[in-house]
């Protein structure tokens, strides 16, 4: 059965709307249910801190949302602190925990983390380091996974001096899942609190706050079908945090600022759906991802999968395919795919659009050239078999062209580039 095409986009012309969106790890399309819940709330007045009926109604929405999120993550409602997103949650956890722990005992000057954390954690750590903290970024293996022995060693060298441990639940670039429960077990033996950035994990793999025992957990709405600009730090009640934002003391006196009730409602709707649908979702998306990997390596035989080759859910996020195309510049590949309506990413690090080689790949032992030649395809709830088909169709000619442009252009020795043109 054929339908008349009314827009040129639908014909695959590459215009807006026709894009094959394989960048869910950067931002995931919102669930229609989350859009509906959020927009409905946008039409209502009321500051959740106001005492009148409208205020109470708004407050109720916020508190119900808090309960929904807590339920989905197996946390208590009082443990959910709303923030503006992942970056703020990471900053609050890392700085807030460090300051409060340090205040309680000035010997606690060390922070243990990994070399593959998101920049929201890494840059917070660096900022603290410039102000006297001793930051130890523990190495990872070739899959990007923390080796527990090094953590144990680092703690046992002087447990009294460790303020906190922060280890991401799953890596945003290569999708490697970290042994968070084991990290908690090791740290808690010495009474050291653990923060985890679970931005990429929630809705993809099982995340159980209470069962894992982590003390603080970062999540954000727009990676799981909710709106951009809202997130949460789930913090155990007995954990003291020094606030970053001072003011009305709205969120447990830890985070001030009028909470964004419409965004929070959209966030809660998305978390609930993402967690509820997760088992079916993960199986479907992992199958698509595996199919993508198989077919890409058929048409580009020298393509290499970065990260854990064991793609089971305990090891790798279901939607993550991080592939190195030897001899190609990741930027060239991205641009050529973009021109064909296929959207992906070269990595997470980006300042003013100037690509830097991924710190994650470098930490995993890649050299700079290898680190520059990779693309991240991240699949999600809107991904279809047709999307994978489009990528598989496009990738071989794109790789061939990018290879002709070479990886040396703009980076290598000065000689060859001019010779051909000039």
């Amino acid at each position: 059965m054929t339908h008349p095409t009314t827009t040129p986009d639908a014909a695959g012309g590459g215009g807006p709307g026709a894009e094959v969106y394989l960048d869910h790890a950067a931002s995931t399309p919102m669930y229609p249910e989350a859009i509906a819940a959020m927009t409905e709330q946008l039409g209502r007045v009321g500051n959740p801190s106001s005492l009148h009926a409208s205020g109470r109604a708004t407050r109720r929405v916020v508190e119900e949302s808090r309960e929904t999120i807590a339920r989905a993550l197996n946390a208590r409602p009082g443990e959910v602190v709303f923030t503006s997103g992942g970056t703020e949650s990471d900053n609050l956890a890392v700085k807030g925990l460090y300051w409060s722990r340090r205040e309680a005992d000035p010997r606690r000057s060390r922070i243990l983390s990994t070399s593959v954390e998101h920049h929201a954690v890494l840059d917070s750590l660096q900022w603290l380091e410039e102000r006297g903290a001793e930051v130890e970024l523990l190495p990872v293996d070739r899959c990007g996974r923390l080796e527990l022995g090094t953590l144990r060693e680092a703690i046992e060298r002087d447990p009294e001096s460790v303020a906190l441990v922060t280890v991401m639940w799953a890596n945003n670039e290569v999708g490697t899942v970290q042994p968070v429960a084991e990290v908690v077990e090791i740290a808690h033996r010495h009474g050291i609190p653990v923060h985890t950035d679970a931005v990429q994990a929630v809705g993809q793999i099982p995340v159980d706050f209470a069962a894992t025992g982590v003390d603080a957990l970062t999540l954000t709405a727009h990676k799981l079908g909710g709106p951009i600009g809202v997130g949460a730090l789930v913090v155990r009640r007995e954990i003291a945090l020094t606030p970053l934002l001072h003011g009305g003391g709205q969120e447990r006196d830890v985070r001030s600022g009028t909470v964004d009730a419409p965004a929070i409602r959209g966030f809660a709707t998305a978390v609930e759906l993402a967690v509820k649908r997760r088992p079916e979702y993960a199986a479907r998306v992992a199958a698509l991802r595996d199919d993508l990997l198989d077919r890409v390596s058929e048409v580009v035989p020298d393509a290499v999968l970065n990260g854990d080759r064991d793609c089971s859910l305990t090891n790798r996020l279901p939607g993550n395919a991080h592939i190195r195309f030897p001899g190609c510049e990741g930027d060239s590949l991205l641009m050529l795919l973009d021109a064909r309506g296929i959207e992906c990413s070269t990595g997470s690090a980006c300042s003013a659009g100037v690509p830097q080689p991924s710190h994650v790949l470098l930490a995993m032992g890649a050299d700079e050239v290898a680190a520059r030649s990779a693309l991240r395809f991240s699949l999600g709830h809107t991904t279809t078999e047709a999307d994978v088909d489009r990528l598989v169709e496009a990738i071989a000619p794109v790789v061939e062209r990018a290879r002709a442009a070479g990886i040396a252009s703009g980076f290598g020795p000065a000689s060859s580039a001019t010779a051909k043109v000039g």
Partner: protein
Amino acid sequence: MRVLAAMSGGVDSAVAAARAAEMGHDVTGIHLALSRNPKSYRTGARGCCTIEDSNDARRAADVIGIPFYVWDMSERFHEDVVEDFMTEYAEGRTPNPCLRCNEKIKFAAVLERALALGFDAVATGHYARLETGADGLVEMHRAVDMGKDQSYVLGVLTQEQLRASLFPLGDSRKEDVRTEAERRGLSVAKKPDSHDICFISDGDTGGWLQEKLGERVPVASGEIRDHATGEVLGTHEGTYRYTIGQRKGLRIGRPAQDGRPRFVLDIEPVSGTVTVGPREELTVDHIAAFRPRWCGTVPAEPLEGTVQLRAHGDEHRATVRVSPGSARDGGDEVVVELHEPAQGIAPGQAAVIYDGTRVVGSATITAATRRRRHA
């Protein structure tokens, strides 16, 4: 055609990209990141190299409706342009980094990558005109707006490079380009023109060189001598702070005996000697240059044309000869006989050769001397 528009964040390159798109080309905008650690905001009158400029370019691309990317050319730019600039100064010459950038980056590294990626041409906001001549070769001519003409800094482009270049502004006057930018809703319409050297943010070339060159220069300080008597008139803090023909900043305590101003005549970086003397000693009529780059065919006969010896400099009537294989590097030497003498010609600068408005080619000046006595 598939066109890659290099967008600095300034008004010219934005309008050039818009015109290329309007001509019906399939245009993609790119901003070249030339610094590893770009400053957040523009300072002074520079039109590139900060994150703000990159954002300006991005906004212009949005308004035009073309895709936009940032290409990291910082390492190549550092190697080919910044390092070369420092070396040239350290060796007592006066380089032009804009020519170098056009030769090595914009119309080489960028163009080559663009062609490999499937583009047909690179468009820039330079003021120069391209025409196809009777012989089928692409000719480059001076821009209609002589005040903005940039054919000098493009004099290094070869036929192959010109064939893959677009200069949509060559027929326009600057004020019209600004008006057009405004009409098109480009927010960069009123952005000031960029001047000076993009990678020296405060415009203090001497201070920048002092900081960067540091110990690299064999003789950091040295003597300032009179050309006739050899008398030491003063000292200086680095030959790279001087350029031939320079009058200001000599810091010689006492005036010359005849009371006339003194100019830098010669720079000798190995001994660190800067020689000064009266203006007439700067007068030259014979220029030797090497490493020629021809826009089209190499002139076989002596060419009666004009030469321009510095950016925004005058045109000098001259006879130009190519002497195959006789340059010091074994390549072709270009010999320029000026019909009227000129002053303050510095080795390292480019001599760009014109036949009327057409650019014939360019070469790097190695020596400038006086051969004839003029009436």
